């Protein structure tokens, strides 16, 4: 479904990521892990088209989407949950979801009602300005807003950051359910609590390059990698 080859991106002359290859098939999931500044966010933004890649190709369902911008990626069926959530603070919860809806004849599996079913916490606050939500509720809203576009691939940038452990566990349940529904997930995480439950596959990023690729089981089999690159 997603095929990334030789992806490089960065600001100005300095490349933050380089030579990133990854592939994702339908209902697959993959976690990018790595320390702060390793390039996880940059990689996800480059795939979404929020940042323009400086080299490499991104093919989604057989079509090239690199260099076409975030809107093209969204229309192709990719949804993005940014690290800082970027929900619209002045809009109500319901309006945020409306902004994520793609109008048109396409089959709509996701509606506001279904998002509210998934996240009862924000259903109660549907008319409240989104800026008044707590961190966890904002994260739920950002994911709900992404789902409203009926994506086939969900990009999540550090979804568990700043969330209480119980909320992280709930989030893991939700993401597993989405995978069962056939949505592929690409995730960047520092915390393993969420990552190991959602995906089997993992890539370790270090100074913008992939230094390990395999399953979490492989990763745990080699404690040297964890110690060197992740600081645990």
């Amino acid at each position, binding site marked *: 479904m997603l095929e990334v080859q030789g992806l490089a991106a960065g600001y100005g002359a300095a490349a933050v990521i380089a030579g990133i290859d990854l592939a994702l098939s339908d209902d697959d999931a993959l976690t990018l892990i790595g*320390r*702060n*500044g390793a390039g996880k966010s940059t990689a996800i933004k480059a795939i979404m088209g929020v940042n323009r890649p400086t080299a490499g190709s991104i093919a989604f369902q057989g079509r090239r989407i690199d260099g076409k911008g975030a809107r093209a990626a969204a229309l192709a069926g990719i949804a993005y949950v940014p690290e800082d959530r970027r929900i619209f603070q002045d809009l109500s919860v319901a309006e945020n979801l409306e902004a994520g809806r793609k109008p048109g004849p396409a089959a709509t599996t996701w509606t506001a009602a279904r998002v509210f079913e998934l996240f009862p916490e924000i259903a109660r606050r549907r008319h409240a300005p989104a800026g008044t939500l*707590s961190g966890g509720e904002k994260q739920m809203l950002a994911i709900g807003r992404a789902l409203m576009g009926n994506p086939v691939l969900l990009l999540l940038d550090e979804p568990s950051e*700043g969330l209480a452990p119980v909320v992280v566990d709930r989030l893991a349940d939700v993401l597993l359910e989405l995978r069962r529904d056939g949505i592929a997930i690409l995730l960047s995480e520092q*915390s*393993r609590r969420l990552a190991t439950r959602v995906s089997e596959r993992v890539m370790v990023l270090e100074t913008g390059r992939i230094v390990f690729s395999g399953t979490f089981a492989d990763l745990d089999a080699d404690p040297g990698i964890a*110690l*060197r690159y992740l*600081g645990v």
Partner: protein
Amino acid sequence: MTAILEARQLRKVFGVTPAVDDVDFSIDAGTRTALIGPNGAGKSTLFELLGGGLSADSGHIAFNGADITAWPPMRRAQAGIARTFQIAAVFRSMTALENVQTALLATVPGGGGLRAASSAFKGEAEALLDTVGIAAAMESAVTDLAYGDVKRLELAMALAGNPRLLLLDEPTAGMAAAERRRIMERATGIAVARGIALLFTEHDMDTVFGFADRVMVMHEGKIVADGAPGDVRADPLVRRIYLGADADA
């Protein structure tokens, strides 16, 4: 040893969640303390409280015997607290040398009149760039420097004011292992030589255990462990926070 910095019941709340939750600690002169903890633990907020970028909701900070809780960053800098930023902040329109010259000029009350700044403190600035190991790049525009060199430059600028306390916010983020070690060797070497107290946040444990003589662990806004590196490493609570509940197995 005497405490150069003391934080008492320091607290900062964002919305309803306390990011820094009634924290108490003190830093002794000439020591090297690492502040670690998972993302969102409150390290950056605590750093901003110490640097003056954020003001505390309650509690007190004393530096060198003076209560600096209400001081703006500028005044704290003048008093001897220097810092680096997580994303290195340098002056983009200048060369590396000019960046350090500007930092040195900032220490002169009144600025120094109309004489050309390009020849001011040239020797001192070159010496500082040499100390952090980038003397060869001093004529380069900072936009042409490699990321690691920008971090070194920032360190040189922080040292310009002869600080008593140096706050380094993730000094090695985004660097390869060998580079990390080199920059930390420089930083700790300088700190020891000049008797500067060092407080740094860090994710890389090799760096933490290799260069700190004391480790403080933050979790959910509180300091949950504090002591010698070996003791902290063995602390079961710390292991649980870092490895997660399911990693105990």
